[in-house]
């Protein structure tokens, strides 16, 4: 009993220390020039990375709890493709002139609301009924993802080239060019979503028992699933707006978290996954940028490792 309680706390402390260390290193290593320029510049980068890492980790863990398996993630099920499609259709239908005239915070809010609406509409039926086979879920995810991406790229082809370049700017806000406005709104969104999410931590543990057991314990299953999907949609919107689509990053950190934490209680798994995501993202960026002097190749490394893990999990899951 003592052992099972002490280990997750120890893991949490160690991971927090590593995460803080990585962030401090990222802020200070190889700093040539004036500190009053470097600190805000790098600080914004770190904040956006931490936000994105947190959003990806929490949304993936919650999504896997609702889906009752460790293979699916919001990204694999096409959530971020959906976000990109919504972005594209917004530029397509309204035109960039009207978009840039809008308050960016309002615009982002609008995008997130539409995203939540569509995500709940499209995915609720998959997860609130009786359990479905993993094959069906993966297939639906692939079809949805492909459909959303194709529709988006179709619209991008027939759009005015000027509009396209503005759209591209909006879609691929990388770490080096995050707008402070967007960062602030994202921070607010994540804070509100987190506040709601942490209230429900005992519910996730019950959800993880499976549909029948959860209903037996008095959970309003349909409502709980919808709530989690809303939270996931908000978090995916934020992470996709900040760093663009990353398919396998969430899969990597969520599975790592279950390995490392030594418990399946969400009050430990969620922070462990978030810390691991921060360490991977900030640490990876640190090594690539400062040690190897590469640029923006981190996503390739993460996707490579995550993709391999996905294949391994899929083969093992099917073999079982």
């Amino acid at each position, binding site marked *: 009993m003592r052992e099972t309680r002490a280990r997750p706390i120890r893991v949490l402390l160690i991971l927090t220390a590593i995460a803080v260390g990585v962030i401090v290193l990222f802020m200070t290593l190889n700093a040539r020039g004036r500190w009053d320029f470097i600190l805000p510049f790098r600080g914004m980068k770190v904040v956006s990375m931490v936000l994105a890492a947190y959003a990806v980790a929490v949304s993936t863990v919650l999504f896997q709890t609702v889906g009752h398996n460790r293979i699916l993630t919001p990204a694999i099920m096409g959530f971020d493709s959906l976000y990109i499609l919504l972005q594209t259709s917004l530029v397509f239908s309204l035109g960039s002139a009207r978009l840039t005239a809008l308050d960016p915070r309002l615009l982002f809010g609008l995008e997130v609301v539409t995203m939540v609406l569509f995500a709940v509409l499209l995915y609720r039926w998959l997860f609130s009924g009786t359990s479905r086979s993993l094959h069906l879920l993966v297939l639906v995810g692939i079809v949805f993802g492909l459909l959303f991406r194709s529709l988006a790229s179709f619209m991008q082809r027939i759009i005015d080239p000027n509009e396209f370049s503005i759209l591209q700017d909006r879609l691929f806000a990388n770490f080096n060019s995050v707008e402070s406005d967007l960062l602030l709104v994202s921070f607010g969104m994540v804070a509100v979503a987190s506040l709601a999410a942490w209230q429900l931590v005992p519910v996730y543990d019950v959800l993880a028992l499976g549909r029948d*057991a959860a209903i037996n*314990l*008095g959970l309003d299953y349909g409502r709980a699933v919808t709530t989690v999907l809303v939270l996931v949609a908000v978090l995916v919107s934020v992470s996709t707006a900040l760093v663009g689509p990353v398919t396998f990053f969430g899969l990597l950190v969520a599975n790592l978290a279950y390995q490392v934490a030594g418990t399946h209680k969400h009050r430990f798994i969620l922070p462990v996954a978030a810390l691991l995501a921060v360490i991977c993202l900030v640490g990876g960026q640190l090594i690539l940028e400062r040690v190897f002097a590469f640029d923006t190749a981190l996503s390739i490394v993460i996707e490579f490792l995550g993709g391999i893990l996905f294949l391994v999990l899929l083969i093992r899951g099917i073999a079982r």
Partner: protein
Amino acid sequence: MIEIAHVSKTYADTVVVRDVSLRIPRGGVTSIIGPNGAGKSTLLSLVSRLLPMTAGTVTVDGLDVTQTPSDILAKRLSILRQENRVTSRLTVRDLVEFGRYPYSKGRLTAEDRAHAARAIGFLGLEALADRYLDELSGGQRQRAYVAMVLCQDTDYALFDEPLNNLDMKHAVGMMKLLRRAADDLGKTVVLVLHDINFASCYSDTIIAMRDGAVLHHGTPQEIMTRDVIRDIYDMDVEIQDVRGYRISSYYI
């Protein structure tokens, strides 16, 4: 009392439960028997709100199961399904403590822990309490799930084939335990059973289903006759009296 009135369940064109009306009184052990595909498990799922019914109503102590908020029902009625595949890595104690969720909503009090400890003791799982579920044998795991249901401390406890995967020693142990839950703890126990002899020896009432409908309903003495069993299973069996219980030998 569980009151089932004109309940039906249809999937597309197949009728799984056909206009079933039943009264299951408070207290005692009630067994539901019948051939495969008779709709026994489905009926149990309908009563416990795990499946929506196509027609009819089910009330538990006057509470309509489709209208009453789920968390209120969870303090009156619990169910254990046949397959329980939990993906989380949990200890026996973790699992049993989930039974307190309807009361504690995840924040366990000392009283909740005491309830869990009692349920673990009732099932004789003290030595295994801190072991993980995936390290246990099928029978031990089944006992852990039953402990969770008892920990939920509901007046009505429904079990869907609780003897699945148990050897004869553990099967007898499980039936004695459920009998004790009814006699000592005052629970109303409803079971789906495949072995009619267990139903005969341990229940107060037997409900026999076939093709989605209730065929017979009565005491073990009334159900365990050659004619009734032939009616239910299309089989000719011999019924013997063994120490006051009716036992059928259907193996040869």
